């Protein structure tokens, strides 16, 4: 009797923001962008302080120390895109408006049920690091999901 193999679970990452008590889940695109996914996973967990873009719309970034020189897989960004800005060594997440035409090296996408949390984090980072005169850091911890 043939035994059907259970599908291989998609690798997931989670971005924890302890100060806001929020966690954002995301699916890695290991088939579409295997080299970058491997490089990202090799440096996890990443603990860093969020910044907010000031030109390209509604996006936040998490600085890393990755000197990535692999082959990029460039796509059009959408809400929920998680991508590496290799020159700036930043892991970026798009949570709303996009006012930049450049394609991005996406390696993961935020899960639908985490998009509201992503928006909350984006709004908080915008306030705390751009519009509020007194700045307050927002810590992010990117790690492999436990499940």
């Amino acid at each position, binding site marked *: 009797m043939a035994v059907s193999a259970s599908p291989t679970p998609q690798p997931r990452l989670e971005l924890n923001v302890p100060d806001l008590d929020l966690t954002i889940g995301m699916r890695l695109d290991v088939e579409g962008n295997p080299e970058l996914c491997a490089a990202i996973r090799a440096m996890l967990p990443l*603990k860093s302080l969020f910044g907010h873009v000031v030109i390209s719309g509604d996006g936040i970034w998490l600085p890393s120390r990755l000197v990535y020189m692999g082959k990029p897989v460039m796509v059009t960004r959408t809400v929920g895109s998680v991508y590496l800005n290799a020159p700036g060594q930043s892991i970026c997440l798009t949570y709303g408006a996009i006012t930049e035409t450049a394609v991005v090296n996406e390696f993961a996408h935020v899960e639908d049920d985490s998009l509201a949390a992503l928006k909350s984090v984006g709004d908080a980072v915008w306030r705390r690091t751009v519009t509020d005169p007194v700045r307050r850091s927002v810590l992010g911890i990117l790690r492999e999901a436990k499940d």
Partner: protein
Amino acid sequence: MSTTLPATKTWQAVQAELEAEIDRIWLDEPLEIQKIRLGVIDTGAGSGGQSFSIMVHLEAFLMIFGANVFYRFVRLAKDQDDLTLDQLRVMTRAFLHKPFNVFEFMGDLALHDLHRLGNDYLAALDDLKTKDDYIALTGSMMTYVIRLHRWIHFHFPWNLGVAFPHRTVEELSAFAAAAKTGA
């Protein structure tokens, strides 16, 4: 080709210092950045006794310096097989050292640690043996500069931007029409 900055340390020692400094400032704001944002400018830079222009210069200069110049150096070293280590040294010094030492300029803008570590980086170029050595050392320098830029970006007074809202042509046309008629 020799440099006017004599190497006193191995390139590995310079890279280790850079990595230690990156560790130190990764989550904790450097004292030099604190001083700049509070207006304590020990070099006297900032014409007219103000420090805003220092923030503007550092925001612009460090953004281009790390994510553009240094990143292109490591990519060239990795991607261009016909580019030799000596040619990389020449290019790097042309961008960073002669005729204008950008690290010295960073020191004038009160980033003394970047001035010191940058000069160590320039001197250590003579000690490199392979292009992989160059990529390793320059990659660390890039990370250090980019992290400093992120600290400046964090404190830059973006909140002043409320005074510069987007306008539409229609809004401005309506204003012009009203101004002409005095209405």
